[in-house]
């Protein structure tokens, strides 16, 4: 009977150890998931801002067809300057 009790205690101890391992792994998983989400947020924000600025630059280049006065600003930013729109004959 004592041997059976010892086996039960050993099983209980093993279960407690495994529960601790699972808890530690869960904690690590949560931490890594948070870090990954934060990195993704940063990258998304950078890409979004770049997309917006590219759109603005495209519109500014398009605008330069109508008003070449903006050309120095575009050239200073390294943007291509559009040829002025041909006036109707």
């Amino acid at each position, binding site marked *: 009977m004592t041997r059976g009790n010892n086996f039960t205690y050993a099983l209980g101890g093993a279960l407690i150890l495994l529960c601790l*391992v699972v808890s530690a*792994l869960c904690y690590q998983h949560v931490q890594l998931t948070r870090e990954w989400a934060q*990195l993704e947020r940063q*990258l998304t924000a950078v890409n979004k*801002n770049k*997309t917006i600025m590219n759109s603005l630059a495209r*519109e500014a280049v*398009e605008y330069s067809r109508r008003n070449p006065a903006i050309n120095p600003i575009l050239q200073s930013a390294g943007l*291509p300057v559009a040829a002025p729109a041909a006036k109707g004959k």
Partner: protein
Amino acid sequence: MSEGAPENPPLDELERRHAQLQRSFRALQRLIQAVLVALILMCGSLSVYLFRQVSTMRKQVEANRPLINQTVADYNSNYLPQVQQFLGRLQAFARTNADFAPILSRYSLAADGVAPAAPPPSAPPAPTQK
């Protein structure tokens, strides 16, 4: 002498009860052990699964962290100052050229580091080079 005999239960009756209790105890002990073994198997499977997930995710984070940090640092140190300068010039230009102000006002000025900015209401067409 024979008066005390009926008060005590017979010895075989006691032995029978004792054996029955022992059987019940062993059955209960086996049941508890079976439950513990089942729980250990479940926890073991869960820990193996979590270990694999954590390993994969750690590799993913460690492989991408330097790239993303580099991208963000590059954006903040190189791209953003140029953008701020460009936006400043465009704003100055929009003050003297009223027809450019609506174009500029359609874009939220993304000049605050990596803070997300609102997208433009409609994507303008790409300029056609002729």
